[in-house]
């Protein structure tokens, strides 16, 4: 038998390999996000499109820049930075000034990801680091929401979109007055609930035809996209499920203590960024625990913090902070919930 000699293949076992890869997982998450982007554009118009494009572009450019600076191969091919870009855009108000979006993209990738060594090493969800930065930096601009299904949304941009760099966005009130189709006053359902105790109907919340951040409104669509990812095992459904369940339960507890002040748990579940956060951001693999018990605790913790911030805190929305805090606690959860190794009695913890 003469072959084998010239170029023999020496590998280490296992020689078999499942056909899943990082690139494939990330690409599928991008696929799952595309319907949300499409809905966002339909709901908010051209500005949402510009928002998403600029966000993705700035993330891509930043990642490329950092790879170049550290003399590494460009890591754009693994799609993860595209996810960051899309997620960042989906959490911003549709008319958010584009120059601020670009800042957010830069901070997301630069501070949230590349500073820690890139894919796999980020402690926090990069998109949310960027979002939190923007929220703290530009508190006025990030709470300037525009109405859903505005007139002329496919023919004109929201006036704040093209704010010149480093300048404040113009006030939106007059424009809203002109384009709105309902009694929209510049407040999202969450803000109305928080400050005026007006709870929105469930249908618009469920189908997403309300004001809010670009991609957080369509609860149903988010669930469907999440279901696709969960079914193909590209996402840890347990995190999303436990986060939503815990938010529901704690929301219910608050509601039944004081129904006049605290919203119904269904409202908690459907409003704001909870769905988007639970399905697409809390499940960020890199920043969440790996242990089977850990993921349940992690999700439950984030759900609880979300509701506590929403109901007791000063802000109408707490999902972003809840997930960032969850990310911060996740190594601790990981340490405390190391799986009990087969055959090791009694349960021993490793710190």
């Amino acid at each position, binding site marked *: 038998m003469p072959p084998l000699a010239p170029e023999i293949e020496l590998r280490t076992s296992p020689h078999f390999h499942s056909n899943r890869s990082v690139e494939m997982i990330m690409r599928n998450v991008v696929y799952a996000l595309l319907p949300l982007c499409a809905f966002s554009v339909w709901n908010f118009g051209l500005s949402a499109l510009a928002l998403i494009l600029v966000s993705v572009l700035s993330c891509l450019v930043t990642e490329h820049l950092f790879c170049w600076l550290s003399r590494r191969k460009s890591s754009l091919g693994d799609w993860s930075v595209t996810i960051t870009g899309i997620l960042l855009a989906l959490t911003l108000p549709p008319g958010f000034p584009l120059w601020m979006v670009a800042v957010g993209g830069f901070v997301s990738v630069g501070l949230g990801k590349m500073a820690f060594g890139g894919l796999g090493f980020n402690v926090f969800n990069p998109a949310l680091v960027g979002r939190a930065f923007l929220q703290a930096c530009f*508190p*006025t601009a990030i*709470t*300037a929401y525009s109405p859903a299904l505005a007139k002329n949304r496919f023919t004109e941009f929201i006036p704040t979109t093209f704010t010149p760099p480093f300048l404040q966005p113009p006030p939106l009130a007059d424009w809203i007055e002109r384009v709105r189709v309902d009694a929209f006053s*510049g407040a999202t359902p969450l803000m109305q609930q928080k*400050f*005026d105790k007006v709870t929105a109907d469930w249908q618009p919340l469920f189908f997403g035809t309300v004001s809010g951040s670009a991609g957080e409104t369509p609860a149903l669509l988010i669930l469907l996209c999440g279901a696709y990812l969960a079914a193909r095992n590209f996402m840890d459904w347990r995190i999303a499920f436990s986060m939503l369940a815990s938010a529901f339960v704690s929301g219910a507890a608050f509601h039944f203590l004081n129904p006049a002040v605290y919203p119904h748990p269904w409202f908690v579940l459907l409003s704001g960024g909870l769905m988007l956060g639970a399905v697409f951001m809390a499940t960020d693999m890199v920043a969440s625990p790996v242990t089977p018990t850990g993921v349940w605790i992690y999700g439950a913790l984030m759900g609880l913090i979300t509701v506590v911030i929403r109901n007791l805190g*000063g802000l109408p929305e707490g999902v972003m902070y809840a997930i960032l805090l969850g990310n911060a606690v996740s190594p601790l959860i990981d340490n405390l919930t190391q799986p009990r190794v087969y055959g090791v009695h009694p349960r021993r913890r490793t710190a």
Partner: protein
Amino acid sequence: MNSQAPSRPPLSTADGIKMVRLLGTVSFVCGLLIVITHRGTLSAIGRNQERLTREAVAELLPGMQRQVVYSVHGGELSKGEGSDRLAGKIYAGYDASGKLLGLVMEASERGYADMIKAMYAYSPSKRCITGFKVLEMKETPGLGDKIATDKNFLENFKQLVYDPDHPIVAVKAGAKKNNWEIDAISGATISSRAVGRMLNRSIREMAPLIERNLRRIEKGE
């Protein structure tokens, strides 16, 4: 400090006396320095503090010529700063003719970030708040901190009625209908409402006391 040696050699009595003497000397010098500074700066500090409140009061009561301080002790009013520096204070301001212009009081309330401390002017005759000034706060710059600067917001306090039947309250921006309501700053609902609550609580506590002692205050006794 890790350079501190943990093990100490046994000390003789002479060493001990030397150490005590040294520490005594150092303490003496230090004490001297502190006392000198304290004495030297005492009057300046007092003047500074007085000027600060005086300026604030004068700003809230335009045209004020004379100021009388009252302190509140257990529901009773007494003239002067009093010894208890924790007691609430009322600054009464008079114009050149000696007529009472109004009263200035301090109030505080938890805001978005930390305590908001403010002063406000109250006119007992008109039964309304006539001025408002934030002294200390840590509200979000550019958002909540507008309670100190926003012209429209401060406009609310030019004539904010104290009505025992209606609490002073901040309502949504542009929704003010009654003169006991405050138009909130849009986007800074929490800070605006904190101001409303602060005024409401303070005025409700103080108004009866002022009513009771109005005569005295008008005369400046």
